[in-house]
């Protein structure tokens, strides 16, 4: 079973990387691009078979290590 953890900077925390990507896209002619936020996706392969337990475990991991709750938020998705 897989857990996909998406980690993003919290709203309101300056994201210079996202800003730079947005700037570059605008320069490439993608004028429709406004705000850009860059984050990361962490894919976990778990031995767990129960999706609920897998989600609980992945959220625990995210809070303890994968995300820094001072500046980041996360979201966990479970897939088979």
């Amino acid at each position, binding site marked *: 079973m897989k857990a996909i953890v998406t980690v993003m900077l919290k709203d309101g*925390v*300056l994201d*210079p990387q996202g800003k*730079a990507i947005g700037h570059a896209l605008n320069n490439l002619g993608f004028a429709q691009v406004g705000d850009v936020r860059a984050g990361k996706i962490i894919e976990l392969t778990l031995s767990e078979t129960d999706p609920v337990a897998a989600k609980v475990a992945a959220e625990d991991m995210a809070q303890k*290590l994968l995300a820094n709750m*001072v*500046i980041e938020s996360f979201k966990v998705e479970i897939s088979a």
Partner: protein
Amino acid sequence: MLATGILLFPGINRERDMAIAVEQSFGRAPRVIWHKETDLSGLDLIIIPGGFSFGDYLRCGAMAAQSPVMQAVKTHAARGGYVLGVCNGFQILTESGLLPGALLRNAGLRFLSMDTTLSVERNDTIFTSHYQKGQVFRAPMAHGDGNYTADPATLDRLEGEGLVAFRYADENRNGSARAIAGIYSPNHRILGLMPHPEDLVDPLMGGTDGKPLFDSLAAA
């Protein structure tokens, strides 16, 4: 003389610089502590040097903050022990919750390696007694993630309670909130800062601006 240990995580790379600076002021080499050790008894000062602990691959300092030795450092801090974290060491201290806030990527998204200048916000701590209050001194910096951030309430508290240790005096190159370069814990026994005073303790290397920090600790 403070009994001193330097933590060594895989990927740390300024432990030798730090040991040289400590030995020069203390007249005694610090103990080097491997990250899997958990016994810090008998030590007064724990130093976490710079580098790229665990490659800084998830976030700077995040994985080191979870290592066995950091549990022991938390215990050490809780009983009033002294802790100095420089660069990656500062990042490890914020990641482990021993200091507030976080270090984000530099505002310009590039690694910054040059001398910066720091102003000494107070000289009544164990770390700064050999500086003057308001003194501006030079220190090399070398980091990709030194952009100090915290929520406004935390920043206000740091400033209000005199917990800002150093600010960037000339140019705030990495974009740190309120030009903060280093902060203390509320008891002023934990100090984290981004620049490297340990790399400027010898006239041959361009100056001794960083030496008073180690002399302060040696005099404690």
